[in-house]
């Protein structure tokens, strides 16, 4: 049986790497070793450490903060690329903190698309809002759910800004119920989805009417200091807010929400409109199913995609209870989950239900994980931000600078159009049954992953990547792998630290002999490597050891095992 009870032993390397792979975009070996000696409780302290909130990135060409309304001639999509690059860079440099993974979780949940929003500041503010609510002082998922209703990017994305008292637009109201809060249950009758009904969609749409986005980004939420949208109307009156009585279905106890005062023109005040929104979110979170729905999403994101009756009873149930009693604190419920016996496969002797290595990596985890494990060198964002952003967004035809392919484009190839998923429910991996994370793998996506890997570990005769990322595989081995002249030591180093589970002897031999050395050449490798260590700049020696090192690592990375985490 699955157990949410805490695991109190030390993590060991396996537990540490499991934890860090799930809560970051891929650890370094030093981080794994640091965590290996800790029990989960200690590890949680480091993961949830509240570092200083990052400052707003500047758009290099103008020096203007991306949070502000840009100067006339600035292309919004260039600003958006700056925000996307800035966030990816934070993922890459986030250390052992869960912060960026948690913000990414919130993005996969409260999804928007940059293509529809088409505003750099709005996307930045949305990211800042989600980020804010991952810090201990703000952490409250229910409160965030209220805030998201007034988020400028969301107001644009799901047409909430166009939803008025007259002939409401139901887009946001529906998805708020179906995707963001209570979730949809089994359909049991006409327009009845167990957890809510079409009547509730209509009621929610009316409560959410009358808002618009702020194109100046000067309307600031006093709670967060972050720009937000607003109710339409001069002064105190909410001009376009629906003042009818909104009656919810029996799924919500037939509760009604309405303004207490309506003026002669049939309008109510902005304060009362906001009060209706608060009441609705309270009503939704009063249903036990809401906490369960969010906890299932957390489980699928951090642990495993299949939730059977046992997991629902032993894990989701206790999580939902914790989540609710803590005041919907992500940190509280995640500390419980990530410290549990279940998370470390310590709850029973059965291995068939183990979760270690049982999720397929997203392209982000694959790509950023590669940058992190191999300590690839990026320019310092404090010194040359433009160069860092160019690595992510790509560059062509800039005088005196080499063209860059752009990591964002290579991520699209691999199946993630970052911050721009195909549909309103977000990236399929986080919602599409039955396969969930399996959606990251089609033959095409896999081939593009392997192609990306090959940019850093090329075949003989192939060019290295034009990505602008500094990496020298030989110095990595020299600086990180003691006794690399022993071929088996070298193979073990990468197999042990890159793959989530141990492999068979046959598989080990495959990696060793595929494109590294041929059987019986161990001595030859030892000699070559020692020569390299003695003369690390000798071109002839490099041409002997480099293709072999590339071949070894490439084979390990271009394997099904490496795609799992």
């Amino acid at each position, binding site marked *: 049986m699955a157990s949410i009870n805490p695991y109190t032993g030390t993590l060991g390397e396996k537990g540490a790497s499991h934890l860090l792979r799930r809560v970051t975009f891929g650890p370094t070996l030093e981080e794994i070793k640091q965590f290996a000696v800790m029990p989960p409780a200690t590890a949680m302290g480091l993961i949830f450490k509240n570092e200083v909130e990052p400052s707003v990135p500047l758009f290099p060409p103008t020096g203007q903060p991306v949070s502000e309304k840009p100067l006339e001639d600035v292309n919004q999509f260039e600003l958006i690329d700056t925000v996307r690059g800035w966030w990816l860079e934070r993922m890459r440099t986030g250390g052992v903190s869960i912060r960026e993974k948690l913000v990414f979780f919130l993005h996969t949940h409260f999804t928007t698309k940059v293509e529809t929003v088409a505003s750099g500041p709005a996307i930045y503010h949305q990211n800042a809002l989600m980020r804010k609510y991952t810090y201990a002082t703000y952490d409250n998922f229910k409160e965030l759910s209220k805030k998201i209703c007034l988020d400028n990017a969301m107001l644009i994305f799901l047409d909430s800004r166009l939803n008025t008292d007259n002939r409401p637009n139901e887009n946001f109201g529906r998805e708020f119920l179906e995707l963001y809060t209570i979730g949809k249950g089994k359909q049991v009758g006409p327009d009845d*989805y167990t957890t809510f009904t079409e009547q509730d969609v209509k009621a929610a749409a009316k409560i959410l009417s009358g808002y618009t986005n702020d194109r100046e980004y000067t309307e600031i939420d006093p709670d967060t200091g972050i720009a937000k949208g607003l109710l339409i109307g001069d002064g105190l009156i909410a001009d376009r807010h629906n003042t009818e009585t909104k009656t919810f279905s029996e799924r919500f106890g037939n509760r009604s929400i309405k303004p207490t005062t309506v003026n002669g023109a049939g309008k109510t005040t902005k304060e009362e409109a906001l009060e209706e929104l608060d009441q609705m979110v309270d009503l939704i979170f009063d249903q036990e199913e809401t906490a369960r729905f969010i906890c299932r999403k957390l489980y699928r994101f951090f642990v495993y995609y299949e939730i059977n009756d046992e997991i629902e009873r032993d894990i989701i149930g206790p999580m939902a209870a914790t989540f609710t009693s803590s005041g919907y604190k992500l940190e509280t419920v995640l500390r419980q989950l990530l410290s549990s016996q279940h998370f470390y496969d310590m709850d029973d002797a059965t291995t068939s239900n183990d979760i270690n290595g049982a999720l397929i990596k997203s392209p982000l985890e694959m790509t950023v994980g590669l940058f992190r494990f191999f300590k690839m060198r990026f320019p310092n964002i404090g010194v040359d931000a433009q160069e860092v952003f160019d690595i992510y967004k790509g560059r062509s035809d800039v005088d005196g600078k080499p063209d860059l392919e752009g990591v964002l484009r290579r991520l699209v190839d691999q199946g993630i159009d970052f911050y721009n998923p195909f549909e309103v429910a977000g990236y399929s991996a986080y919602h599409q049954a039955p396969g969930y994370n399996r959606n990251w793998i089609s033959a095409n996506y896999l081939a593009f992953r392997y192609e990306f890997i090959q940019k850093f570990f090329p075949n003989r005769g192939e060019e290295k990547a034009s990505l602008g990322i500094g990496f020298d595989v030989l110095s990595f081995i020299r600086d990180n792998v003691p006794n690399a002249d022993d071929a088996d030591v070298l193979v073990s180093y990468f197999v042990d630290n890159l793959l989530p589970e141990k492999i068979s002897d046959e598989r080990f031999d495959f990696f060793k002999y595929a494109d590294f050395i041929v059987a019986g050449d161990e001595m030859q490798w030892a000699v070559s490597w020692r020569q390299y260590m003695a003369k690390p700049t000798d071109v002839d020696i490099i041409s002997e050891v480099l293709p072999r090192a590339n071949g070894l690592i490439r084979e390990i990375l271009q394997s099904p095992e490496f795609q799992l985490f």
Partner: protein
Amino acid sequence: MKRRNFLKQLPLAAAAPMLLNGLPLRSMAGNDPLKRLAAASDNDRVLVFIQLHGGNDGLNTLIPVEQYTQYANLRPNILIPAINSSSNRKAIAVDNTLPLEQQLGFHPDMSGLKTLYDRGELAVVQGVGYKNINQSHFRSRDIWNSGGNFDSITQSGWAGRYLYHEFPDYPDAYPSADMPDPLGLEIGRAVSLLHHTGQGIPAALAVSSPRGFNNLVDTVGLDNLPEDLVGTNYADELEWIKGISKKGDQYAARLAEVFNSVGDTQVSYPSVYPFPAPKGAKENSLGQQLQTIARLIEGGVKTKIFLAQIGGFDTHAAQVESSDPTTGLHAALLYHVSSSIKSFQDDLIKRGVADRVMTMTFSEFGRRAESNFSYGTDHGTVAPVFVVGKAVRPGIFGLSPDLSNLNNKNLTNALDSDSFEMTNDDMAPNYDYRQIYTALLEDWMLADEASLAATQFQDFRSSKLDLVGTITGSKEAFFAKHFRLDECYPNPVREKTTISYYIDSSEHVKLTLMDISGKQSTTLFNKVQAYGEHKIEVDLSSYAAGTYVYTLEAGAKKATKKMLIVR
């Protein structure tokens, strides 16, 4: 060390993705372990599906004629001018021979489908849905793809079940000599590949050229899992990745070969919507997918089911340009669908494979009859389906949705199906979507009873729509009703003769006379005429005696008859 040898021979081989026409592909067939004994399908017919993602607005696709007033009242801010309006752009009258209650207009940007209708290659099925339509995109899409009811729980797709039955022992027994290709192929942009339901191996196409294939999977030692990992979730995921890689390796070279064995299309596929629309909607993302399918079919691919996709139909806001509701987002999407299908059909004809292909569109649901204030429509119930092919039984199936009874449950306005319970508010369905799928499987793909049972469509056999005719036989009655050229009178002709004919819609009409040798040709009449019966008297006294043929062309329709001039 097979892989190593391979690399030595081809040092430049990379795991580059295979792109046909610049589009990635993936296979739809799954790896359900069901093993069946039925014989593999032995005909060369194929089905092409075009999925309209987001929920297509059926009422602005097919504009009602008899209920136009109700339609205009429900959606004053997005309405398309009626077929008889004086507007420059208005609904295209489709077929005046139909009873008034069945008449409809196509959206003005759907002239491509109108041409196919006139050629007898289009069936329009009005009001398609299912009992208790679910208004969640994701659930409703899963229902259409799974072939189930509103409350079914199923982990497989109907096409997957059908293909497993037809091709026993998939995937292990394939590719085979008889079936060298993926059973199904899904084609689309990289981003759209993420959202297909149903399970199984989306087999896998992963190399840029034949020389680069065989590079996705190194299974050496992979099956030798350490003992305590056998049967774990980790092992399941490994197996999944391995399965996809393997199918990719197996099929990539073959598909590239098939694709490259024939040339590029000789037909033009319109790529840009010519009227105002949001930037993202102006480009046609569907045409290239269909071009690829046409080319693969001519190249001899044995794949049975294709799926192409176009997104953007979730038109909650600004589905029309407020300045001209005949243009904008939804108009552009309909233009792409209509013009691409027309070009696809022409492409198939030019490639000589049109007799083998039937194409169908579908969307997860339609949109609300009443528009919202933001020039859009919220999630609704029924939507129309288009079925295109040489062998389709042409015409309109069912009536326009009843707009006077939007909240009246348990009603049906089907012409030729038993009424079935309708419980959503808003428009009621005429047909269950499986009445169409069953017709296509049984009457087009020639699936037998066992196959339909395996697909779980056996209950729809008795109510399937009569959608499939024969290549020529099903059209005569259709054409007779829509277009007729009579024998001229008198004939033989001494001086004057009268040529009478019937056209079913307002068309540009051209009447030409040619001598039997084909050397001399004269245009007798050449202008737009209203629909109905027409007579033209012509004076042929200046013509030499002999045998002549006269030809009437009206839009896509054409007929020729003989006359004798005597002196």
